């Protein structure tokens, strides 16, 4: 299992992600620069970390989604490789067209930095296989633009196809997302985008290690 963590100008949660992936998979991930034209040949999963790529210019994730390396990320995703986007990474996956909808300014207009409760609505993603549907766990969020919106038809499609992977539970929706959506997958299930930061609840010194189960799920999936 060799994970590639893609680094964009303005990524700032990359080291948290690298540490979390290395801790759980016991193998340092490859760091891939946005201007590279290809993922390393050994790559078996891709993670887009959080941050403020390109200063959130134009729209969050919009410029990063058109970076040279994304051509190969999109190809890998369409070929079935597990791809995880966290926070800004989720925004990038949406802007790249790998996931539907849009992430807009939080309804409160406030940047939120706190923990929320998440319920696993679908565990078909390679990153959620060790969870049971209905499991509820606590996870940090830190974002200003996490308000998931999509058209009514797109929402019905997500619901009917079981593509809402994670939802905010216990009235902890921090951003006004429609249907309390915290994370969604593509149709094939291999691409997961989510606003919360499981990598910040993974390492021994962090308040909880529940987030490690997402990376353990990836290991189980690959085994």
């Amino acid at each position, binding site marked *: 299992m060799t994970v590639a963590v893609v680094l964009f100008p303005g990524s700032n949660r990359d080291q948290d992600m690298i540490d979390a992936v290395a801790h759980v998979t016991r193998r340092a991930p490859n760091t891939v620069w946005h201007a590279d034209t290809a993922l390393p040949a050994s790559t078996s999963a891709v993670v887009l970390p959080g941050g403020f790529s390109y200063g959130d210019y*134009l*729209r969050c994730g*919009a410029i990063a989604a*058109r970076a040279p390396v994304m051509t190969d990320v999109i190809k890998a995703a369409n070929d079935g490789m597990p791809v995880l986007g966290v926070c800004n990474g989720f925004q990038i996956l949406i*802007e790249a067209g790998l996931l*539907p*909808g*849009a992430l*807009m*300014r*939080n*309804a*409160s*207009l406030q940047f939120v930095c706190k923990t929320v409760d998440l319920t696993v609505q679908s565990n078909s993603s390679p990153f959620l296989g060790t969870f049971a549907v209905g499991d509820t766990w606590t996870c940090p969020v830190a974002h200003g633009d996490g*308000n998931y*919106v*999509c*058209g009514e038809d797109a929402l019905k499609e997500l619901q009917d196809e079981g593509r809402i992977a994670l939802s905010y539970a216990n009235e902890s929706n921090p951003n*006004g997302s429609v249907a309390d959506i915290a994370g969604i997958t593509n149709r094939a299930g291999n691409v997961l985008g989510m606003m919360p930061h499981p990598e910040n609840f993974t390492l021994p010194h962090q308040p909880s290690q529940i987030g490690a189960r997402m990376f353990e799920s990836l290991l189980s999936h690959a085994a």
Partner: protein
Amino acid sequence: MQHFSARLIITLKNGVLDPQGQASTGALKGLGFGSVQSVRQGKVMDVVLSAADETGARADLTAMCEKLLANTVIENYEIKTVDQMETASA
């Protein structure tokens, strides 16, 4: 090739929540502008480009909006003006 200066207007689609516009609405009311009913915030972009003719320029601008400048899930775009320029501009 001719040079053109174009103005693009990008607005949020109807029904898409615009918290920034709502905040401005509230602030205007706070300043005593009781007449204000709503504010919707959008973007204006001025693009200078070269093309064989205006039709070509409009086709390019449309592709630019579709591929990058607008997110058509939540935004509408309009090519407001396309003016031919005398000389190239930086």
